[in-house]
């Protein structure tokens, strides 16, 4: 053994190991990285809020343009504007509904139905969504789907805007049932319609027409109570 080797244990005993720092360097840097992440999160969240406000403004601008185009009968321009409104503000139910309505009006029932089905996923009992789905299903000849959606629309809740009045929905349902020969169901729905019919001549004319149609198709059936005609209404 050399002299150095013999001295080594003595040196170790004499010079104590340096005390490690309480917090390791890597841990300290990791904490700093966490602080950076928190700051970045706060900044990104603010930018996201600003971006959302811009998206809402952009959506409103395009929606107004779509309504204006719709008002002057320019359906293609209206559809393009509603598309942009719905793309800008994807959370807005009125924009989605307007887009679906516009698409259906242009004959793009498939795409309109997809939009409405997506809306129905989040609002299954919304009157207007179900009503529009029912009309698309009726046009496509899917009677069961159409009846189901009409029934949801009749007993649903208004969540997305100004829904059609219940008697309007029921008139369409009765028409659908008569078209497809389900006379018993049509009879029942017609009775219900007569109970809730508003006192307007137009509504009564429509109800009377349906009743006459039912009578023609099934003369032996017990006729529903006659529609109440408002005082001074057209005969």
């Amino acid at each position, binding site marked *: 053994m050399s002299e150095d080797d013999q001295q080594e244990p003595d040196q170790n005993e004499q010079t104590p190991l340096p005390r490690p720092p309480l917090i390791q360097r890597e*841990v300290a840097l990791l904490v700093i990285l966490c602080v950076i*992440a928190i700051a970045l*999160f706060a900044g990104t969240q603010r930018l*996201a809020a600003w971006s959302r406000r*811009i998206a809402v403004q952009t959506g409103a601008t*395009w929606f107004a343009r779509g309504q204006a185009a719709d008002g002057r009968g320019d359906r293609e321009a209206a559809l393009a504007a509603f598309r942009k409104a719905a793309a800008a503000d994807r959370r807005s139910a009125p924009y989605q509904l307007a887009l679906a309505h516009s698409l259906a009006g242009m004959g793009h029932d498939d*795409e309109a139905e997809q*939009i409405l089905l997506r809306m129905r996923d989040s609002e299954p009992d919304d009157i207007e969504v179900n009503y529009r789905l029912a009309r698309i299903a009726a046009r496509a000849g899917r009677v069961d789907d159409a009846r189901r959606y009409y029934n949801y629309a009749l007993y649903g809740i208004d969540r997305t805007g100004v829904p059609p009045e219940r008697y309007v929905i029921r008139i369409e349902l009765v028409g659908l049932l008569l078209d497809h020969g389900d006379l018993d169901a049509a009879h029942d729905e017609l009775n219900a319609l007569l109970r809730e019919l508003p006192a307007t001549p137009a509504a009564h004319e429509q109800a009377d027409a349906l009743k006459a149609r039912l009578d023609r198709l099934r003369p032996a059936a017990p006729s529903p109570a006659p529609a109440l005609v408002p005082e001074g209404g057209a005969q």
Partner: protein
Amino acid sequence: MKRLLTPSAWRVRENQLFLALTVVIGIIAGLGAVLFALSIEAARHFLIGTDAPWWRVALAPCLASAVSGILLSRFFPDARGSGIPQTKIAFHLQDGVMHPRVALGKFLTAVPVIGAGHSMGREGPSVQIGAAAASWAGQWLRLPRERLRDLIPVGASAALAAAFNTPVAAVLFSLEEIIADMNAPLIGSTVVAAVSAVVVERAILGNEPLFHVPQYRLMHPGELLAYVSLGVIGGIASVAFCKGLLGARAAFQRMPARSRMWQPAIGGLMIGAILLVTPEVAGVGYEHVDQALNGGLLLRVAVLLCVMKMIATIVSYASGNAGGIFAPTLYFGAMLGGAVGLIARQFAPFPVAAPGAYALVGMGALFAGIIRAPMTSVFMIFEITQDYQILVPLMVANMLSFAISQRYQPDPIYHALLAQDGVSLPAHGAATPHAEA
């Protein structure tokens, strides 16, 4: 309690440190990707706005590219293009070392260019930003080289997960494309980072999916023939795009070296002209992909948008702008698929699914053909739809597109782009730099 206060209790073992670092990098890379996407939206709002006059639409890409070109030439030469090839170089050739300046450069050059309407995607740049942030954090912590290298796919998967809201596909993309090894032991770290990134992304942007896709299914066994056709057409389109992109890029590279600074602006002028004809191909364009996925396109519109988007992407990328080809690939895949679906609906003697189903499969087929990551494309579409029903047609079309693309364009696009720059990356294992690299 007393033990917790002793210094030895605070000693963190390397594995624990790496795990904690993975979570933090996942959060930072995810936030970076979200910030990047929001900044592109902000740039788009300021540069184009809601209703820009024609001259603004035409000139904005050129002006944004001119500024970006100066920045790219003078300060950030590594920030050109997609970002995925550079990330692969960092992983395979540079032991995971990326300069933090790369992330800053990519952010500053890609945001105005994509916001101004260049037909480029945000995923590739997000991947490079995420990987650069991860590498910077690792270098700051003085991690050993092998650990630093491991952080590249971690940052990349986190950024992609946040940018595309598909964590599983992001992890697979890192394994399949960045590491080029599906059996890599890094899967745990990439999963942790991707999950962290998606959590913060959803905390900020909400749980809104990137695309609203209805549930599609195979309507008739004969319909598989239509999907086979889509796979074949997708493969041919993939080869055409790759050849076109590489050819146009080579043409720009043959131009005098002093013109390099202004090449992005030349591309910008061309994009401005394209946008005057088809403004729908501007930027990332996911709203039009969504429209195609819901069957909202006419045949001639779908074909026109597919062709114009391909041309616009080739021009934007080949001229040296900063931006990716991931999103454009999905765009023209959706348009091509939608067109095939509309033709099938018109002529097939059996019931066929809605054109949106074909648009969805087309996205996967073009992704498999161009990016050459078939597993990622299958899982990406599955994550978008949450639906197993479409998987069989998707796999059929993907494999055909992949096989045709591999036959006629042997080098995957990112490898071919690197080869043009004089860098060669073998599919597996160590890479060999060319003389120029």
